[in-house]
């Protein structure tokens, strides 16, 4: 049962990396899109792409939190009491970002819009970065089982900082690929080129950071390194191949294929981390079983997963389909 819940948690993290990641990435490009005039069209494209699905994407984060605190309460407390600084900053980013998003569309005054938009964009970068440092801290074993670890060094370390950078790069990559596909559908040549170039840059950066992260883990988290280059190697390779293929096909492939490939690249990367770290939840000292809640709680969680799959999946499909249809109508 513990393993089932652990897999459920990993799926949640992957989903958040994919859907939330694309969202954050859009915010990142928003930040770098240039002045009010030059950046107007790319920004409109982004609004168009993420508008209605915004909230649905972020429910994944809540899902992950709930799974950890119900399924692995001891680890949850340990993480929260150690990494409270980066988590606090990430929350700050979420608040600012969420409200910025909510208000931006309703505000007409350009000055206010600019302040609000800037807040939105900046926090889109801050949040994934700090989540990345949290993952780095957990993976490199800097969260003691009893909690209350070093509140600074647990996230200011090579593993954490590189993972933070990697998180930003992944988000930027996903968003750029999705935006390219969107622009292609709308038949906007220049925008297509604009976002394609950015997808390339982000992909290179993500690749470089991933390699650097791996190299650092050789010293910093040796067990992780061994498994990343061992049993998780197929996933690492799939990730790299899918990512490269998505870039290569960006000119002529079908939109659906490109989106899928980019998604696979990110999902395989996260899954690789999960596989390499299993059966440990915190570094190499607390396993999932150590931190697990009583079986009945875990069973309840699994039942909730199942119910969610039955109820939520069709509704989410409906939403995405309606959104696609709406886009075709207006485009």
């Amino acid at each position, binding site marked *: 049962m513990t393993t089932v819940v652990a897999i459920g948690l990993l799926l949640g993290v992957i989903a958040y990396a994919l859907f939330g990641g694309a969202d954050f990435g859009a915010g990142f490009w928003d930040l770098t899109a240039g002045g009010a005039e030059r950046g107007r069209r790319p920004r409109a494209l982004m609004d*168009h792409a993420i*508008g*209605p699905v*915004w*909230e*649905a994407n*972020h*429910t994944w*984060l*809540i*899902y992950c*939190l*709930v799974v950890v*605190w*119900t*399924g692995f*309460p*001891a680890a*949850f*407390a*340990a*993480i*929260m*009491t150690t990494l*409270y*600084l980066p*988590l*606090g900053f990430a*929350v*700050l980013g*979420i*608040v600012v970002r*969420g*409200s910025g998003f*909510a*208000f931006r*569309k*309703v*505000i*007409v005054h350009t000055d206010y819009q600019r302040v609000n938009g800037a807040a939105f964009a900046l926090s889109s970068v801050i949040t994934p970065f700090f989540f990345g440092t949290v993952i780095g801290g957990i993976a490199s074993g800097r969260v003691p089982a009893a*909690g*209350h670890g070093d509140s600074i060094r647990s996230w200011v370390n090579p593993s954490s900082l590189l993972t933070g950078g990697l998180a930003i790069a992944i988000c930027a990559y996903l968003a750029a690929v999705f935006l390219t596909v969107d622009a292609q559908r709308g038949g906007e040549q220049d925008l297509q080129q604009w976002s394609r170039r950015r997808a390339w840059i982000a992909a290179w950066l993500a690749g470089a950071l991933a390699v650097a992260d791996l190299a650092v883990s050789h010293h910093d988290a040796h067990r992780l390194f061994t498994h990343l280059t061992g049993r998780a190697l197929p996933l690492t390779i799939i990730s790299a191949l899918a990512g490269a293929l998505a870039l290569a096909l960006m000119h002529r492939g079908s939109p659906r294929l490109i989106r899928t490939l980019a998604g696979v690249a990110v999902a395989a990367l996260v899954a690789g981390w999960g596989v390499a770290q299993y059966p440990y939840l915190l570094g190499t000292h607390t396993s999932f079983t150590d931190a697990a*809640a*009583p079986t*009945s*709680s875990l*069973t*309840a*969680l699994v039942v*909730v997963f199942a*119910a*969610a799959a039955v109820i*939520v999946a069709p*509704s*989410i499909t*409906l*939403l995405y389909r*309606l959104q696609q249809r*709406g886009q075709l109508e*207006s485009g």
Partner: protein
Amino acid sequence: MAFTLGFHIILVPFGVAFTFLMLVANYRGIRRGDADALLLARRWSKVAAVLFAVGAVSGTVLSFELGLLWPGLMGRFGAAYGIPFAIEGIFFFIEAIFVAIYIYGWDRLSPWAHFWSGVPVTVAGLGGTASVVAANAWMNQPGGITMRAGRVVGVDVWAVVFNGAFWYEMLHMFLAAYIVAGFVVAGVYAAGMLKGRRNRYHRVGFLVAFTTAAVVMPVQIFVGDVAAREVFKHEPAKFAAIETLPHTGTHVPETLGGVLVNGKVRYGLKIPDGASLLSGLRSSTRVEGLDAIPAAVRPAARLVNIVHLAFDVMVGTGFALLGLSTWFGFVWWRRRDLPRTRWFLRACTLAGVLSIVALKSGWIVTEVGRQPWTVRGLLLTRDAVTTSGNVWAFFAGALVIYAAVGSAAVLVLRGMRKRWAASGDAAVDVPYGPNAGDIAAEARP
């Protein structure tokens, strides 16, 4: 934490009950071809979208805060306490998805399909409220867990969710949500009418909201009465604080107002045998006082006073609102119209604020009334709260952010209203919705 919860709890009625009002207007609009009602539904859906986006953000922050500020609670009881939140997660998903569909679906779906796409929002709102209240109720009457050496080793999921306090707390909060949403919305239109905007649009807006709240009000008083007796039976310490009762005894008077100073109640208005009658329906009912609580976990007089006065405020405002509802009901029954005096509209404007005051005080009663416990009988607040970092820094940060977000939300909503008045509906973009430009493009042949 208390502050962010306090912020979030105001938003809850709008996520839960405001969408219901919106659907009522929507239904009326389609059924009777009522253009005013349809316009109301459309505008309310946009307001709901903004508030829902803010509510989702503050809700996300809350789930983080549970860990950041209360690691003791989550670490020790997460296995039980977390389950209602897992269930809530599903409802939240559904709500988020269908809010988006509903907002996006205006003019895109057929009227009835669109109406039905809004129904899951209201249903999920009910489910979500029930789950979160279940978690809160569990803190008041924890059940369904087996402890060994300070660790939870067994969890009975049904007993955790449907704990002793679940039914009445859930109903009480749920009805409160409808009351607050109803009176606040009615208050907005009453204010509009006072300023001379006495058209049909304002009238329909007022009636839909006010009628809902007025119908719910007497039910709420009844449920509240039941809830108080349940508290008397199962949470004697909280009840003693509510009644500000220093000593155990029979023929206990009901004290209105008053403060506890040095173990004596001062300045209160006492109704002989009141508390005994209300709690046990007989004047000889024995009511446990504060002296029945072991000294180590007895709440300080300051806390007792807060709980007692908050309770009085809640009941007082509740009855004031009931009076207003009765006035309206009577006049409507006689001549199918609103009371003519301007004082009625003034009172309605005030009712919105009063209903929020009642909601807040009720929440204070249940939360402060549990102190010094976080999980009654199992976990003291001082053991639950974080010791890492500077709680106050976090708290101050949260305070500043919420003040900014809150005032921004108000400004944005005001701005929306002005633009509706000035340039019509198509000019207003909302979260989740299509861009105004898109709508204009679609409207072109």
